[in-house]
């Protein structure tokens, strides 16, 4: 998936997951987006195409209602001009560095050029050592700063908010964070390209500054030292200017020539300038350009193929709903007939927890009914992905009845409806807690995870999340078992 599509998908995901109360983006909207995107991309399309198309539709529709979302999405895209400005500023800086450095004489032992070369060598070493120290892909401080300036920003907060505003804020706060996570490798390469170019530009600026000023002033070359004699200086310069000497073909002057320009003596600096420029070109500019090119290639590849965390429940649900079979959820009430209000609540909770899953609710299994207490033997079509036991908190959990049923069902999430209990004992939290504890003990003894919900008035975000967690804990437990075998 390319960068722009990935951003759309991430934005759509931020809208759909952050808006827990479904104020901005309702269940109907979600369904519509699923159906419309599936209709447009057709059966043969890949999951990426489907997700991208769907995200486009989501943003289009929500953009008309919440322009702030569109603005934010636009706002967190990479700004190429920041890169251009950075490179130009680096060039200007390079020109200025030389100006600051020396007036009209070049101290052979302390020119800014040497500092530049030394710094870049340190950087090359760092680039080699970085994967060992920081680990792969983590951007260093310079890159992070650049990324922050050029794209991802923290959104603004403040003022009181109604439900829609609060929801929008959650979305807008979540999106940049989420995008920064998804696009981190791409942005890291991009920042690396800009920074390499900027380093090359700085070096070029230094040289350009020297030559430009060399046209109108005469630079004099000289050196002085408390500790070093001409021979040592010659040796030092021979080593440091060797790359320049190699590329320009100009030999480094001999000891006598160097002795001659010891301060207060001096000579015209043209030769030295060529040597220095050559050195900078070889040590800084060329390698940096190569690195920039490599970063650019990497950036292009990553921009074409942004990796989304498709194994997260949100994407899994969407993809499962489109390709392959939807998650099938089978709810098996045990000795409990749901009141109509609780039934409606159950549907909502299931929709929340399992997205567009196909959920069926069985006829209640009769209390202590041995023949039917093993639902695995039921003649139900297909094997559901998730089997969900449903109990009522009004019942006392009994090993012989409820426990036997759970044993037949195998470990998994168990939903305990509190609506009937609360209708009787609403004002007695202590009583509810002891009953909950009894259920928790029984369900956990059978390897399951109890989820307590008042189905008559479910707290949808919490209940949905708990149930999804309980079900996926089970699923990942299965995967772990499978790997173990």
């Amino acid at each position, binding site marked *: 998936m390319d960068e722009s599509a990935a951003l759309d998908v991430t934005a759509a995901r931020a809208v759909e997951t952050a808006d827990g109360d479904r104020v901005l983006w309702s269940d109907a909207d979600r369904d519509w987006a699923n159906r419309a995107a599936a209709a447009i991309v057709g059966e043969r399309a890949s999951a990426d195409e489907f997700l991208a198309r769907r995200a486009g539709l989501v943003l289009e529709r929500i953009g008309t209602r919440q322009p702030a979302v569109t603005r934010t999405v636009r706002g967190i895209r990479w700004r190429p001009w920041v890169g251009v400005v950075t490179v130009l500023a680096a060039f200007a800086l390079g020109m200025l560095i030389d100006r600051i450095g020396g007036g009209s004489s070049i101290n052979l032992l302390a020119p800014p050029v040497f500092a530049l070369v030394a710094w870049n060598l340190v950087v090359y070493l760092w680039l080699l050592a970085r994967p060992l120290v920081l680990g792969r892909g983590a951007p260093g401080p310079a890159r992070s700063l650049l990324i922050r300036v050029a794209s991802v920003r923290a959104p603004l907060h403040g003022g009181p908010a109604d439900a829609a505003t609060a929801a929008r804020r959650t979305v807008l706060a979540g999106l940049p964070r989420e995008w920064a996570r998804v696009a981190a490798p791409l942005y890291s390469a991009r920042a690396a390209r800009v920074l390499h170019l900027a380093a090359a530009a700085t070096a070029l600026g230094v040289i350009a500054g020297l030559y430009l000023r060399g046209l109108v002033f005469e630079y004099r070359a000289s050196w002085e030292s408390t500790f070093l004699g001409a021979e040592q200086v010659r040796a030092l310069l021979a080593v440091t200017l060797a790359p320049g000497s190699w590329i320009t073909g100009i030999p480094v002057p001999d000891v006598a020539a160097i002795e001659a320009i010891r301060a207060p003596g001096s000579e015209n600096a043209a030769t030295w300038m060529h040597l220095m420029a050559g050195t900078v070109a070889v040590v800084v500019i060329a390698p940096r350009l190569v690195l920039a090119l490599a970063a650019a290639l990497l950036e292009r590849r990553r921009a074409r193929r942004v990796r989304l965390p498709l194994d997260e429940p949100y994407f899994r649900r969407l993809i499962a709903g489109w390709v392959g079979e939807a998650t099938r959820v089978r709810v098996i009430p045990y000795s409990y007939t749901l009141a109509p209000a609780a039934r409606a609540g159950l549907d909502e909770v299931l929709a929340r927890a399992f997205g567009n899953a196909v959920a069926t609710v069985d006829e209640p299994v009769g209390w*202590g009914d041995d023949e039917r207490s093993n639902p695995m033997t039921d003649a139900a079509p297909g094997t559901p992905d998730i089997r969900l036991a449903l109990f009522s908190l*009004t*019942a006392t959990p009994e090993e012989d009845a409820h426990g036997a049923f759970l044993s037949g069902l195998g470990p998994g999430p168990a939903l305990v409806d509190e609506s009937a209990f609360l209708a009787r*004992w609403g004002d007695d939290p202590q009583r509810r807690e002891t009953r909950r504890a009894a259920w928790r003990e029984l369900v956990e003894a059978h390897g399951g995870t109890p989820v307590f919900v008042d189905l008559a008035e479910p707290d949808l975000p919490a209940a949905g999340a708990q149930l999804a967690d309980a079900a996926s804990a089970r699923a990942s437990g299965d995967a772990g078992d499978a790997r173990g075998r």
Partner: protein
Amino acid sequence: MGADAAAGLDTAGAVSLSLISHTNAGKTTLARTLLGRDVGEVRDAPHVTAEATPYPLVQTGGGDLLTLWDTPGFGDSVRLARRLRQDRNPIGWFLSQVWDRYQDRALWLSQLAVRNVAEQADVVLYLVNAAEAPADAGYLAPELEVLDWIGKPVLVLLNQTGPPRERTAEDADVARWRAALAGAGHVRGVLAFDAFARCWVQEFTLFDTIAPLVPDASRPAFARLTAEWRRLRLADFDLSMAALAEPIARAAADRIVLESEPLAKRVGGSLGLPDPVRSKARADAAEQLAARLRADQRDGLQRLIAIHRLGGSAADAVLERVAGDIRLDAPLDETRTAALGGVVSGALTGLGADLLAGGLTFGAGMVAGAIVGALGGAGLARGINVVRGRSESSLAWEDAFLDGLVTSALLRYLAVAHYGRGRGDWREGEYPPHWRPIVVEAVVGAQAQLASAWARRGDGDGAVLRGLEPAIARLARELLDRLYPGVLARAIDAP
């Protein structure tokens, strides 16, 4: 020990009731509530009670005895019913008990219960969990089958109905279960009888319903036992009324004489000139008055709790609520209010301000709360009245405030009377919302009678009590009759 002890008790004039149900339906809780003492073990878990235990419920002077058996709950009822179907000979399964005892506790406990009922019970009290729909109580059918096999008359009690509710809701529950149990041959009646929130008046209905189910030979004895039960409960009622009325009568007669003031000051006061010394004196006096009321109310509630054989104490926290419970719901007499306004001088408004500022911190929160509650915040200082005599002024509770005390006393009485001991120590909870309107209505209806009681306050609390106690007793009976129509009248008319 069960069988032998019971055999000894099984003489003429003895009746046995067996409490039986699915496990954790609340048998022991109900036994505690009926007995008024902590028997057995109560926990929200299955199979807490592991043996059948007899408890003497009531005894007459003539040696009649009503025994209540608490039994283990039915566990695996389906299997129990199946085993009975296969093997109708009880000897067979008694022999297998040893095996079951270790292998299948639930089944073994069920057998114990069945055996007890089969051997001991004259009438079976079968408890069901009314919070569950009858259709969801999957154990119901096999358990009825077992009861059918036992062949004793069964009275179904709906337990776990929740806090007291409107009668229509209760009736709907009863109708639902009655319909579900229509086919069961031995079920002779269905009663809503919650172990947590039953009222003693409902026990009369329980006895009346049991009476025709008792074997013919025991009927005279049961009638005598019923009469004894009624006598005990009505005696409790009379004691309760005294416990309610006495603190209020004392509050009505209570007064604190304020120090007399020079004429000039009195004139200044009636002109509304502020006087910090007088304000302070009156605030102190009001606080004393409130402290006395508070202590009295606490003792009264403590007595009420003891009379109803409940545990726990009337904590101060509970009494803080009394103030909140007092609310004047009757329209104020306009002329009287106007006269009151004249008597209550500006200084008393100052008292109100004092109370508001510091009252909540130095313990007069009760007064502030009561006053605000009594008059809905309109006339802040009017809960306490300054009565100006010829030479001295005194501070006393305002009539409307005393009416408020009657309302709150009756509400608390209902709360205590509906508090089953099985629920544990008494603690104050929210009152069911349908109580307050009927209590207020009753108190407003009795205002004339109350006013005549307050009119005698000058003659001391004894005089007030003579008028107040019958008034409160009549109000309480009215209320109970409204909640449980006809039951009390029948009980009082009965020989």
